[in-house]
């Protein structure tokens, strides 16, 4: 009984002392600023096409990763929690893939019936 209590409320019994150094937060904070500035520059210099899209995605994933890993502490969490949170994201990737096929079909039908005027 004593053990299970500790399992559920670990902070009750012992003093919570495991904090990170302040430097790591300031570093991540600064990096997020720099990356946001870079992604704004993508629009400022009006990059177009694949260059624009790949840069946007690159900065986006880098920022998202930094926030999740360090601000949301996932880097220091146990794998049991991290994996429960990250694996469901593959369902989103599947959904994106499906809807990507779907919008191309819709676009094709619209061109075919609205612009071309059907067969």
């Amino acid at each position, binding site marked *: 009984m004593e*053990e299970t209590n*500790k*399992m*559920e*409320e*670990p*902070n*009750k019994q012992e003093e*919570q*002392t*495991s*904090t*990170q150094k*302040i430097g790591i*937060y*300031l570093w*991540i*904070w600064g990096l*997020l*600023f720099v990356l*946001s500035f870079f*992604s*704004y520059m993508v*629009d*400022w210099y*009006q990059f177009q096409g694949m260059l*624009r899209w790949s840069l*946007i*995605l690159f*900065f*986006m994933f880098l920022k*998202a990763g930094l*926030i*999740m890993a*360090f*601000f*949301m*502490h996932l880097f220091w*969490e*146990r*794998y*049991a*929690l991290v*994996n*429960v*949170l990250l694996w*469901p*994201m593959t369902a*989103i990737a599947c*959904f*994106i893939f499906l*809807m*990507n096929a*779907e*919008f*191309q079909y*819709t*676009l094709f039908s*619209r061109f075919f019936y*609205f612009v071309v005027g059907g067969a």
Partner: protein
Amino acid sequence: MSEQKIDGFELKPGFKGMASDTGSDQTMFKGVHWGKAMMWIFLLSDTFVFSCFLISYMKGRGSTIVDWPNTSEVFSLYVGGVPVPLLLIAIMTFVLITSSGTMALAVKYGYEKNRKMCGWLILATALGGLTFVGMQVFEWSKLIHEGVRPWGNPFGAAQFGSFFFMITGFHGFHVSIGVIFLFIYTYKVFAGHYESKKRGWFTKMKGDYVEIEILGLYWHFVDLVWVFIFAFFYLW
């Protein structure tokens, strides 16, 4: 951060640890406060909601035969007669990141039992969030004045308005709720509720600074969602 040491248990690191945590016939998330686990599960479900919005936006934008409005023109602000593309959105992004940084530091000082510092940083986070919502109100009213409606707009494809109001509106709603809770927790920290071990939210368990981390998770998530909205809706 979860406790890395729990009396009477040997916690293995990495995937081995995951296997033994999951198969232990006990609490799976070892050393993780139940409230924090619940917040994570909520954020996971919220991720799916926002993903559905962004995916439907992808589908809507991809399947229209009318040109999509040029966002860097639609969202530009005139500074001294010169249009600066996405100026307000860039400022909003920096404000939100700043508030995310102060929140991360608040969590750290909370765990170090530095009550004053923690309180001030949460207050700063709340004010940052409030600034963000204020700028969003300005942005909305500007676009509504220019004739953007959920069913049409003067700049291009009619779907633009409905996606804009739905996605930024739902995100702004999250920020607003977050700001309310940040103010409540500013009060709770300054009033010393975590030193006097007052009861926490919706529970008989005593309050603890872990609640600040749980609040922080929500706030960082709001920032995280903005990263995706900024990339896909404003920049793409």
